[in-house]
């Protein structure tokens, strides 16, 4: 079945440093979605990328979708303590007229103030 892989599994940074997490799918994706899960919380939708090579920004967060639509990255500039959490990428994998999301294992980001 389809696999979605993420690296690194953990990342610890000093506040103000940048952070990047990478996501790779074993198959081409129609879109890729990114979610953030705070410790003890639920996944919260951040963004969806649909087009090949697409780049989207949300304040300090930059999301990229690869040309082959099999990989993606999330980059945070100048991290803050509020960025702490696990960042998951997820790709739709259902066939036919519906889909399910296959999540990567996530990258846990901790920020030292």
């Amino acid at each position, binding site marked *: 079945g389809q696999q979605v892989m993420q690296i690194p599994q953990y990342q610890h940074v000093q506040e103000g440093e940048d952070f990047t997490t990478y996501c790779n799918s074993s198959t081409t994706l*129609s*879109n890729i*979605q990114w*979610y953030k*899960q705070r410790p003890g*919380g*639920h*996944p*919260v*939708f951040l963004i*969806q990328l*649909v087009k090949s090579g697409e780049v989207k920004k949300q304040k300090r967060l930059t999301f990229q979708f690869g040309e082959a639509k099999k990989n993606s990255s999330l980059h945070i500039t100048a991290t803050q303590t509020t960025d702490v959490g696990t960042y*998951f990428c*997820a790709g*739709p994998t*259902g066939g*036919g*007229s*519906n*889909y*399910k*999301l*296959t*999540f*990567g*294992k*996530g990258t846990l980001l901790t920020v030292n103030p």
Partner: protein
Amino acid sequence: EPEVTQTPSHQVTQMGQEVILRCVPISNHLYFYWYRQILGQKVEFLVSFYNNEISEKSEIFDDQFSVERPDGSNFTLKIRSTKLEDSAMYFCASSGAGWDSNQPQHFGDGTRLSIL
């Protein structure tokens, strides 16, 4: 902003007992999902539901699991005879109209299920 609500927030059950987890999806959403997350691990898809029937299910969703939309607002997950390995956080999610893969899913706060 509309939310997906789940009850209870924590359920403790003896092994072998039945448990029902409840969810109220966002009111105008038509597609509903259950996921589970074992502590410290990734979110795993269980089942998707549309038009009063299961659309897809994973290998985790075996005969012990069932879902139901008993009325116009609730969406339930039943585990018939719980096992220790069913202990996890269970998330309900829903997504809006447009039955394609481009609709983001909105997650509830989850129910932590602990099997003793």
